[in-house]
């Protein structure tokens, strides 16, 4: 058993020595490297190499022709590069989704996103808040199907935002002058550009519209982040599976999907609460304007 008393430090049970602290260099490299927005892949591999080397591992295992090379190997120890290679090969399953890309790509060419957009347009939500909830659930279903997608440029900007403004206008919770004119020409799926003749630029400038925009982006994130773990084909589930495997614990991908259900449920319930409050706040803002 692992459990120790809180006073173990005083008992001198263990000491953190310099060698041990140096091992955290890799963690520090990942944290600093990613915080500085350096190339992620490079940061991760440098952290791996540094961690291995400061822990006293040789570059290569002591085998084959490497054992004749000075400095690069140590007898009886696996090399960092060997460990990296083995781990990368063992974790190929994490990048297995590549094999699903041709089918999804071809489906996109034949209107997968357009048809998704058609479905979104059919949503008849009475209020802004309800529209966000329906959209969030729609994104959870995407995640379940294993579709990886950044919905901000493809759905939120061209569809959900104008539809939200339309819903706000219909329910009287956004000022007319602000909400008008944003639903007319904006139903193509072209990604939003910097110059934006008919949509966001024109309708900015009021607090209620700013709130609607924030809610649009949030609904996308909520649905995307929590819904994606409902599919074993998604990166999160496969990452957890692989990392736990590396730690000597075999978990089942089915169990991972199963145990994420309470979190998905909570993510939807909380969103319902937040978006209903948004509806009330928008209503009050419109009251105040009148």
């Amino acid at each position, binding site marked *: 058993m*692992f459990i*120790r008393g809180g006073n173990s430090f005083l008992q001198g049970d263990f000491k953190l020595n310099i060698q*041990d*602290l140096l091992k955290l260099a*890799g*963690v520090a490299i*990942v944290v600093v490297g990613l915080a500085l927005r350096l190339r*992620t*892949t*490079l940061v*991760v591999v440098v952290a*791996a190499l540094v961690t291995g080397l*400061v822990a006293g591992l040789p570059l290569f295992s002591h085998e084959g022709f490497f054992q004749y090379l000075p400095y690069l190997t140590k007898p009886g120890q696996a090399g960092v590069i060997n*460990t*990296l*290679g083995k*781990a*990368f090969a063992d974790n*190929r*399953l*994490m*990048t*297995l*989704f590549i*094999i*699903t*890309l041709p*089918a*999804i*790509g*071809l*489906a996109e*060419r*034949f*209107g*997968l*996103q*357009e*048809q998704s957009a058609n479905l979104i347009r059919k949503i008849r939500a009475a209020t802004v808040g309800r529209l966000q909830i329906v959209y969030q659930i729609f994104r959870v279903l995407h995640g379940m*199907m294993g579709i990886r997608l950044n919905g*901000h440029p493809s759905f939120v900007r061209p569809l959900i935002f104008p539809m939200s403004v339309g819903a706000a206008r219909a329910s009287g919770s956004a000022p007319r002058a602000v909400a008008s004119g944003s639903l007319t020409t904006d139903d193509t799926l072209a990604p939003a550009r910097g110059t*934006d003749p008919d949509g966001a630029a024109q309708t900015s400038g009021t607090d209620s519209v*700013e709130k609607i*925009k924030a809610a649009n*982006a*949030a609904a996308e*994130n909520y649905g995307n982040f929590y819904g994606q*773990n409902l599919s*074993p084909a998604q990166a*999160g589930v*496969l*990452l*957890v599976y*692989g*990392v736990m495997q590396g730690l000597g614990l075999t978990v089942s991908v089915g*169990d*991972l999907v199963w145990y*994420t259900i309470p979190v998905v449920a*909570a993510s939807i319930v909380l*969103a319902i609460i937040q978006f209903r409050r948004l509806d009330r706040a928008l209503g009050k803002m419109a009251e105040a304007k009148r």
Partner: protein
Amino acid sequence: MMIGYVFSLETVYVLTGVTLLIFALMAFADRTNPRRLGSGLFWLTLGIIFMFGGVAPHWLTGLLVLFLVALDGFGQVGCGRVETDPVERAGHARRLGNRIFIPVLVIPIVTFAFALLFRRLGMDANRGALIGLGFGGVAAMIVCLILTRSDPLTLMNEGRRLKESMGAVNILPQLLASLGVIFTTAGVGKVIAQGIQQVIPGNNLFLLVLANCLGMTLFTIIMGNSFAAFPVIATGVLVPLIITPFGVNPAMAAIITLTAGSSGTLMTPMAANFNIVPAALLNMRDQYGVIKFQLPYALTLWSFHVLLLWLLIKIS
């Protein structure tokens, strides 16, 4: 015996490797890609690792990984332009309607069917699901070709378009899991675990769960990426201080820890793609407007994670 050989994980890896090889050849030939040599080499190398990773000596795979990362590190992986006409896509969408979802749905259905079949045959259902994912991808290709009456070249080219638009960062989960393995080999987890034990008594489950979720979220906020935080927290806190000593179901604890990190993603400007770029896309006055809206939601859901994990361990 023969069937077992065909329907194995290694076969699926080889199929994925072949797909990558085709992507690589197409990338080499793509004149619209300013980095076609680097891109082609990247997908080719990854394809080789997929096909031969099971049999190649580990030092060779390790060197190939360094080569992959060097290509990306020096900005040699780019993307070409495969364009389709939006009007044409809309026309197809009208013609095919909801049937376009069929090929996409084939993937989870086949995955699930394989898992059930493997369980039925008394084999590892987990392995079945992963193998099913691979064959689901292949089945989806066939269904999609029949449905759209398209040709294999277009199929592969569209796959490559999607792959290239995602970029080299696609291999990140695989790299992060490898980093986790090296952390474990080097004993990084032990150092973190010992550090935490100096502050928190090893028998106080609630405080350990709190530290686990807090660490996960703080790392995610700083790095902007919960996937990068997970291997560190799993090796340093979750497994040595919670799962092993308390005999906790590892799947349950691990997936809840991962999504505890998602609260961090909702709160950090470091996750620019999700929080800052949308604010710009929507021309928001306040570039942190999305984060401010998400903040109360993220904090509440985070607290829920702490309580859920603690309760599920308590009642099991």
